[in-house]
């Protein structure tokens, strides 16, 4: 009886372990094939593209350059890519440099926030406490912001929250924005479950971000010198300010259970919101502006794990999305 059970267990173990080993080996072959059979991406040198109007982004074409920061000229988006040797999950760039968040995988996964110089080499490295989410530079490249997910688990509980910081590149650290005074309808709120994420800069004092409290995400206007966050609109996440400073694009939850986001654009002067529902996919990204009328955002490919594309969409109600940059993520446009 007992020996029969031991035999049964051994059979189950052999089947489970054998099957798994076979699967792992086959998946390794598949991965090698995918790398080997990936069409080579046409390449150029950094020097050729680093001066003109350009797009800096994370390359998501499968192959040896996967995850690296790459640059293409704005007038030749399908042309050769120039690769750096810096790997980033999220990047934003200005003419003076770039801000990069990266996951360093290992036995213990670690995370870093890199300041890149004008030639996109690493100039400074800061540790961050969790998974990279968003990063932005101010228009003149002097301020940098990051949002990461801090996950904690103890034996009895699980938790997830964001940590968002702003600092001067090579200077003052303004610290975690959760410490700023949060004002909602003229009142100072000291709530427990407050989370801040997704900064976009207007200038070196003013920025916009998301503050969520009590389950509602608010668009807030922040002031660095006064250290304040003032709610100006409800139901907005991950804002992005248009280059002329008149509109803010953000993702808006349009489902009951926070599983579908649509891009919305708010006219700051009139407080009118337009839903860009010409894009039917859920957009879970902090958008970038290509120019004052067009937004850019990344979407994952349904059939290719890890591959994403950047799409463009005119900021009107029924515009149709168009492909902007294939096999790319986290675009930053430098005019």
């Amino acid at each position: 009886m007992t020996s029969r059970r031991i035999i049964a267990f051994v059979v189950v173990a052999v089947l489970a372990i054998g099957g798994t080993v076979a699967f792992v080996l086959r998946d390794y072959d598949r991965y090698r094939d995918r790398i080997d059979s990936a069409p080579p991406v046409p390449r150029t040198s950094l020097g050729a593209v680093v001066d003109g109007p350009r797009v800096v982004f994370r390359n998501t074409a499968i192959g040896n350059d996967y995850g690296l920061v790459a640059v293409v000229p704005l007038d030749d988006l399908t042309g050769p890519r120039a690769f750096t040797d810096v790997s980033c999950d999220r990047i934003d760039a200005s003419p003076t440099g770039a801000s990069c968040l990266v996951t360093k995988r290992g036995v213990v996964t670690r995370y870093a926030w890199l300041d890149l110089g004008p030639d996109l080499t690493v100039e400074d490295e800061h540790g961050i406490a969790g998974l990279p989410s968003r990063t932005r530079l101010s228009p003149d490249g002097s301020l940098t912001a990051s949002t990461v997910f801090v996950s904690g688990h103890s034996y009895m509980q699980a938790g997830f929250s964001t940590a968002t910081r702003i600092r001067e590149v090579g200077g003052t650290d303004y610290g975690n924005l959760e410490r700023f005074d949060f004002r909602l309808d003229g009142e100072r709120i000291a709530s427990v479950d407050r989370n801040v994420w997704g900064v976009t800069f207007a200038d070196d004092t003013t920025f916009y971000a998301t503050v969520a409290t009590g389950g509602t995400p608010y668009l807030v206007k922040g002031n660095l010198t006064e250290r304040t966050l003032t709610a100006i609109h409800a139901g907005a996440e991950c804002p992005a300010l248009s280059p002329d400073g008149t509109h803010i694009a953000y993702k808006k939850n349009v489902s009951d259970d926070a599983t579908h986001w649509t891009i919305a654009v708010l006219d700051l002067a009139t407080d009118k919101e337009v839903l860009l529902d010409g894009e039917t996919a859920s957009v879970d990204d902090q958008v970038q502006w290509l120019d004052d009328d067009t937004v850019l955002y990344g979407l994952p490919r349904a059939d290719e794990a890890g591959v994403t594309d950047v799409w463009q969409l005119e900021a009107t109600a029924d515009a149709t999305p168009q492909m902007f940059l294939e096999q790319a993520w986290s675009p930053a446009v430098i005019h």
Partner: protein
Amino acid sequence: MSDRPGGKDRTGTRDPIPRVVITLGFVSLLTDISSESVSAILPLYLTAVLGLSTIAYGFVDGLYQGVSALVRIAGGWASDRSDHPKWVAAIGYGLSCVARVVLLFASGLGAISAVVTADRIGKGLRTAPRDAMISAATPTADLGRAFGVHRTLDTVGAALGPLIAFSILWVIPDGYVTVMIVSLAFAVLGVALLGLLVPDERPREKLEVAPGREFRWRDVAEPRLNRLLVIAGLLGILTVGDGFLYLALIDQQDFDATWFPLLYVGTNTAFLVLATPLGALADRIGRARMLVFGHAALLGAYACVALASGGALFTVLTLVLLGTFYAATDGVIAALAGRLVAPTVRASGIATAQTVVALARLLASFGFGVLWYAVGPRTALLIVGGALLVAVPLALQLMRGLDASADTA
């Protein structure tokens, strides 16, 4: 029955840990490899492959905090009522195993959330019957050590899980599905080990309980258990989640946030090293007393974070003290609670104690969040630490007699 009255010869050689306890430990080890390997990569998988933001996942995940606590009581009740703790535990382990299969096909946030919930419910269901089985299989004098061994094996699994997952991703960078398959294999092994090699002991049948005297909630509401619940609840309300302590450490500017993920590893290492020796020590000095001493270690961790000016030494000390706290409380409270009630309601008794602790700590996190924003992390820790400083001797006083009465249960 296997329960022996206290007063066992403490100087003589100790009995080996019962085989059932070791087997259950390996069931937990395999299952924890399974669940921790997936949860380690889940945030990366959600963002890199599915293109979802983890904050959305965080919101949904947060909704299920309370579910697990309620399910745990249900698991305890089902175990006592049916008199088949093994099969109730098997359903719990099986549910988590099925969740691994569904995860392979889940692509949306809704589906992922459902999988996480099923896993959580499975964990809630299995915990109390499993702890009741450990309790039933072990002589009272060795109970703390037995739970310590189980928790050590459990934590080894939790540490191996992420290691295995990231090793796979290192070799196959887009091999998320492979990680899930490997996770599934470990879950299957765990369930098979429990189902095939753990005997189906029936505590109530063994006691030959008269037909009229079956499961009754009145038996759970045993005055000595109630005393434990009050004390555990009181201490639980003063237990700040370790996430807060880590954040407070980071708040000290000289701490490099790069090392943040290592803090969990440090605490878990201390826990797995100390769980067995502290459990054995609890058998000697009294489990109720050890439970209170564990909170003194927690108080020490608060002091390290609040009073120290930072530095690596204080960080390491904080983690060791936190690990000591978990080692002195996590298995010990189950060992204690299981002996304060009649064997017919043992799983329910253990579940009730664990649920009280979980809910009290949930409340503590909420309250500490308010304090944190109101007065800052350092002052907030000093306030809670001050309250704990009063509560620890008080609890020690209130616990008096619980150990002796447990021994004769």
